[in-house]
């Protein structure tokens, strides 16, 4: 008897692992597809969206924003409804194929130089399809895994889905780096950037093959067999008071705060290191990568912990510590990189001048290297481009003659490690709010409309509230700039947006959400 029980338990665990594997690989690939567009934004912009064409430039802006936060909630509605009508398995197979197909085709589209305006238009449409697919994927994967998981391990098993967004970012950066190193910068810029896009088709094919072999979620199958599936999931989700109030609670009490904490820890931290602290490109990326690698297992730790002590207080504590400590953490980051706080070794300063003539333009480059007592090095590259003809130069508007200045600070070992620690702390906040959230959302809604109901608050919270962190934070910092050529008075002003959203969300979540993990409703 005991042996039979043990064998049955082993079978159950193996089966759940397969489900996790099939779901996570697909979700990871979707994130990979979504991120490579962002990671290669500069090259894509040069290839498809030339700045001298205003319409193409506008499309570039729209492609960035629309895919991120307008289309994702629509994808959540469209595929969520489909998932509640025909089933989870086939719906998230479709989202995977759409995402992979769009990514692959982006790798094939000829550039603006070859087909003109059609190039940005096609890429824009493909990017929208990517956003739509991403909107449908997460809810499906989380629901599918949760509906397969043992009742008291739902937080643990679904937390693997939560790690895929971070791993997807890694894989995308890794593939890009490998292809770039193998081909060289010139070949990569000319055609090699297409390889990560084309590669997607193989990854998707493998994932589709794995997912095809999986069976439908047992809870959904039962409902379908009994003829109890919803006939209109959208109306049931958002027109019925009892469910709409839970959608609002999920958004305002959890996903909005989780979205801003996630974007601040994973994306704003990198932008702050590069733009406010001027940390050199490779060093800043290594800081973020190490912090993410070390922090990622904590998604699973907090997911599992939520099975024991409840989802609510882990998420709320994550938000609370985040909004209370953001300003102190970023103050330390800013001060540690601030050259005004360091003693310069003036006799070591090196200044190089280079001049060249290219066509009718004269190019002047000045490179200044400074060294500091704590081991910090600073490099400023100033590039001036002006017409050789003095009369033409005199007639040009001043802003066209403005030099291009690039500042790069390289930190010594001890400060480099300290920065990793400071970003790691933020990643821990991310894992606290994000680790248990899939299980939390799944438990809020009944099986018949779960896919639809949980997808919308998730994608509004992450896509809209979280996705707007870079845009709004940059604006808040710019608003403190006394003049265009002066530094901002408060480089930390951008943090007010995530702080306020997380604080409001914390209050709502603490007052209105119950802590006990719910038994998920079989109907």
């Amino acid at each position, binding site marked *: 008897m005991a042996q039979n029980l043990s064998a049955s338990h082993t079978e159950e665990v193996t089966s759940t692992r397969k489900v996790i594997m099939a779901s996570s690989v697909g979700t990871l690939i979707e994130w990979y597809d979504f991120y490579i567009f962002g990671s290669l934004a500069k090259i894509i912009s040069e290839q498809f969206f030339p700045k001298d064409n205003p319409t193409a430039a506008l499309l570039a*802006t729209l492609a960035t924003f629309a895919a991120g936060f307008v289309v994702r909630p629509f994808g959540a509605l469209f595929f969520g409804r489909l998932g509640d009508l025909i089933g989870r398995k086939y719906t998230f197979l479709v989202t995977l194929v759409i995402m992979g197909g769009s990514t692959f085709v982006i790798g094939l589209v000829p550039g603006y130089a070859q087909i003109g305006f059609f190039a940005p238009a096609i890429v824009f449409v493909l990017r929208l399809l990517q956003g739509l697919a991403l909107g449908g994927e997460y809810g499906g994967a989380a629901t599918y895994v949760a509906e397969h998981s043992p009742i008291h391990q739902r937080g643990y098993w679904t937390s693997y889905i939560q790690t895929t967004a971070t791993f997807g970012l890694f894989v995308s950066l890794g593939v890009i780096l490998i292809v770039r190193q193998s081909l060289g910068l010139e070949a990569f810029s000319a055609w090699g950037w297409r390889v990560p896009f084309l590669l997607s088709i193989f990854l998707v094919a493998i994932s589709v093959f794995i997912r095809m072999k999986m069976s439908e979620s047992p809870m959904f199958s039962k409902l379908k067999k009994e003829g109890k599936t919803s006939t209109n999931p959208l109306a049931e989700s958002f027109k019925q008071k009892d469910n709409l109030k839970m959608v*609002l609670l999920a958004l305002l009490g959890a996903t909005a705060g989780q979205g801003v904490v996630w974007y601040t820890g994973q994306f704003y931290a990198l932008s702050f290191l590069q733009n406010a602290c001027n940390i050199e490109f490779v060093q800043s990326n290594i800081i973020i990568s190490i912090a993410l690698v070390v922090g990622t297992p904590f998604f699973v730790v907090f997911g599992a912990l939520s099975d024991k002590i409840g989802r609510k207080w882990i998420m709320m504590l994550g938000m609370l510590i985040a909004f209370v400590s953001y300003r102190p953490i970023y103050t330390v980051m800013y001060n540690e990189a601030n050259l005004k706080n360091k003693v310069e070794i003036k006799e070591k300063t090196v200044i190089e001048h280079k001049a060249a003539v290219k066509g009718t333009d004269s190019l002047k480059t000045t490179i200044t290297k400074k060294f500091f007592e704590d081991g910090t090095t600073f490099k400023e590259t100033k590039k001036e481009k002006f017409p050789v003809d003095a009369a033409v130069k005199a007639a040009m508007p001043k802003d066209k003659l403005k030099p291009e200045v690039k500042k790069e600070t390289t930190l010594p070992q001890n400060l480099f490690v300290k920065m990793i620690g400071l970003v790691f702390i933020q990643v821990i906040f991310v894992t606290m709010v994000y680790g248990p959230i899939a299980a939390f959302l799944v438990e809020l809604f009944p099986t018949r409309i779960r896919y639809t109901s949980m997808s919308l608050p998730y994608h509004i919270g992450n896509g*809209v509230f979280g996705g707007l962190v870079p845009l709004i934070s940059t604006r808040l910092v710019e608003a403190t700039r006394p003049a265009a050529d002066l530094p901002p008075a408060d480089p930390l002003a951008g943090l007010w947006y995530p702080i306020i959203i997380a604080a409001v969300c914390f209050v709502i979540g603490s007052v*209105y*959400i119950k802590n006990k993990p719910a038994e998920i409703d079989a109907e």
Partner: protein
Amino acid sequence: MSAIQKLLGIVWAALGVGIIPLAIKQAMTEIAKKPSEENWIFWSIVLVVLMPIIAFSLISFGVFALKGEYEQLN
């Protein structure tokens, strides 16, 4: 807890209502100050995407809270 939930309901609904004129006024001031394309895109996103979501969800949530709809959860 029930009284706090209801009382806060008024706060959320008021916040949701208050955010509409505030966002519109701020957008008009900022665009009038600097009518660049960048400014237009930013404020369009705020007014068309972010503000309606915040306003609608806070007002509806506040009304539900005020009616005691979340009491049975605790």
